[in-house]
């Protein structure tokens, strides 16, 4: 039988598919960072904590209120988005006139607080979340057994990513957004409420993180530190892609997921650092990132 570097092709397809699923999380999270960065010019360090928040809200909805997964898909991102709006109104807004690094420090502090509070309440062992009936079980694709919950992650994230891209790049609302990114004063002069737009954009970016959290709830352990290490990888993804374009961050997210998936097969020891190594290479060759514009 034909084999590629000692791995049968069926197994390879399976691994690539799994890589794509992990890439979905990178894509949604880096997309959220890029949306926020585009308008607010800050790096949202709280993103990992907000991803965790999405998963916990999903868990709480089911266990305290009996709300099922499908409603959570809608409610949890909105809830997380609202907390984001509050943070923006209370804190982040007051820092726009300062160096952007203060935004980074502030959101880092907020991340510590959020994580700490959940650690205090829920411990770190992790909570179980029962996948809804439609998502438990799976299909045998011939080359692998694909659980429905994983297939759903790819579909949902692809839809959300494309919808976001469409709204920002192809609609009038998106046009305002892009214009405000370039020149907020001018857009304000046309009667657009720019501060409100900034608040809602932050809320939306955060809601994306919350959405990723909902997707993660049935497949990963829900615990307060689930976002901590992930966010550092996503930062590297963002550096590789450059935050210049929406499509760029989506493509980079999925692409790096695939590469990481391949590393897990051929050199598993290196799979934790492969993205960082790629980041170093990109910095050597194209410091602005693959899709970045030099500032």
């Amino acid at each position, binding site marked *: 039988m034909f084999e590629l570097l000692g791995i049968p092709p069926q197994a390879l397809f399976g691994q690539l598919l799994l890589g794509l699923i992990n890439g979905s999380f990178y894509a949604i999270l880096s997309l959220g960072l890029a949306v926020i960065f585009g308008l607010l010019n800050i790096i949202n360090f709280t993103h990992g904590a907000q991803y965790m928040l999405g998963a916990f809200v999903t868990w709480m909805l089911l266990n305290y209120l009996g709300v099922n997964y499908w409603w959570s898909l809608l409610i949890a991102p909105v809830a997380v988005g609202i907390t984001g709006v509050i943070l923006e109104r209370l804190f982040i807004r007051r*820092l726009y006139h300062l*160096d952007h690094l203060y935004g*980074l420090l502030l959101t880092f502090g907020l991340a510590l607080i959020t994580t*700490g509070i959940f*650690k*205090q309440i829920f411990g770190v062992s992790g909570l179980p979340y029962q996948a809804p009936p439609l998502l438990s079980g799976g299909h045998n694709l011939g080359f692998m057994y694909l659980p429905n919950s994983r297939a759903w992650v790819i579909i949902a994230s692809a839809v959300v990513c494309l919808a976001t891209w469409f709204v920002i790049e192809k609609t009038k609302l998106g046009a305002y957004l892009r214009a405000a990114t370039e020149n907020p004063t001018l857009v304000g002069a046309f009667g657009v409420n720019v501060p409100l737009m900034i608040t809602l954009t932050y809320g939306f970016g955060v809601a994306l993180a919350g959405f990723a959290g909902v997707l993660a709830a049935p497949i990963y352990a829900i615990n307060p530190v689930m976002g901590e290490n992930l966010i*550092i990888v996503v930062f*590297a993804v963002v550096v590789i892609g450059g935050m210049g374009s929406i499509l760029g961050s989506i493509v980079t997210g999925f692409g790096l997921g695939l590469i990481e998936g391949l590393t897990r097969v051929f050199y598993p020891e290196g799979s934790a650092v492969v993205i960082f190594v790629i*980041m170093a290479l990109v910095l050597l060759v194209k410091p602005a990132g693959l899709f970045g514009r030099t500032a």
Partner: protein
Amino acid sequence: MTATTEATGGPVVAQQTAGGMPAHHIAIFAGLLVLLIAAPFFFYPIFIMKILCFALFACAFNLLLGYGGLLSFGHAAYFGMASYVCAHAAKVWGLTPELAIICGTLVAGVLGFLIGSLAIRRQGIYFAMITLAFAQMVYFFSLQAEFTGGEDGIQAVPRGHLFGLIDLRSQESLYFLVLAIAFAGILLIYRIIHSPFGQVLKAIRENEPRAISLGYRVNRYKLAVFVLSATLAGLAGATKAIVFQLASLTDVYWTMSGEVVLMTLLGGMGTVFGPIVGAAVIVTMQNYLATFGAWVTIIQGLIFVVSVMLFREGIVGVISKWTRKPL
């Protein structure tokens, strides 16, 4: 970082007196020295040594952030790696403590050069994210490498004999060694800040395009200050390994990078004495709150938020404003 402009931009402008250190700085350094010589008679010496190590670490970090305007979110890499190398040199190679500390410090410098030359290709928040990502890589390396002992770290590091003569198992000898290292390191940083090199750094921080147009090779200056900062952070980490007889993953993890940012921010970035105060406050806080678990994280987060929102000059920055003297 332009924010420091705001902190120092008022009437308080660091002035370089022709004869070197201004009188009130000499007085503060002397006062500190007296306090620190007396401290072990009143406080637990190992606790003071911990503060000293972190004070040096924070000062080294402040050199990069406060004067170079570069926010590194990965300084734990140099601190921790130096600590590992020093511990390994003292335990496995059997080197005397001063040689072990030098080994650790040099390795931190080399690591700083490697990471720095890549990281300075980007500015601002990208710089922060890149340093963070590389530090995470160093963390994974430390976790997997044989010589670091993985999760166990390097334990039971011998304190040995300084220059082969002075037995450091005596708490007093060790204390004065640590005091000497930390003080020398901090004075060196002071000297760097007030040298022509330091002035160019400030110029770059305030207005990079202008510095370029004046003919300065900005990237060389940035790399130089990055390497210096990493090396001195390494000195702090290596010393810590000898004090605690231990090198562990805690020192390379990103939370450590966050802590040193916090110390500098709280004490007052771009001030000479701020990081020392910040380190003392945070280490003391961690010491007394150790039993409260996750509350330490929550309180650190709160300090971050409060510092950024209301207190950007930091403790020493505020005092400096009141007394109208640069500190």
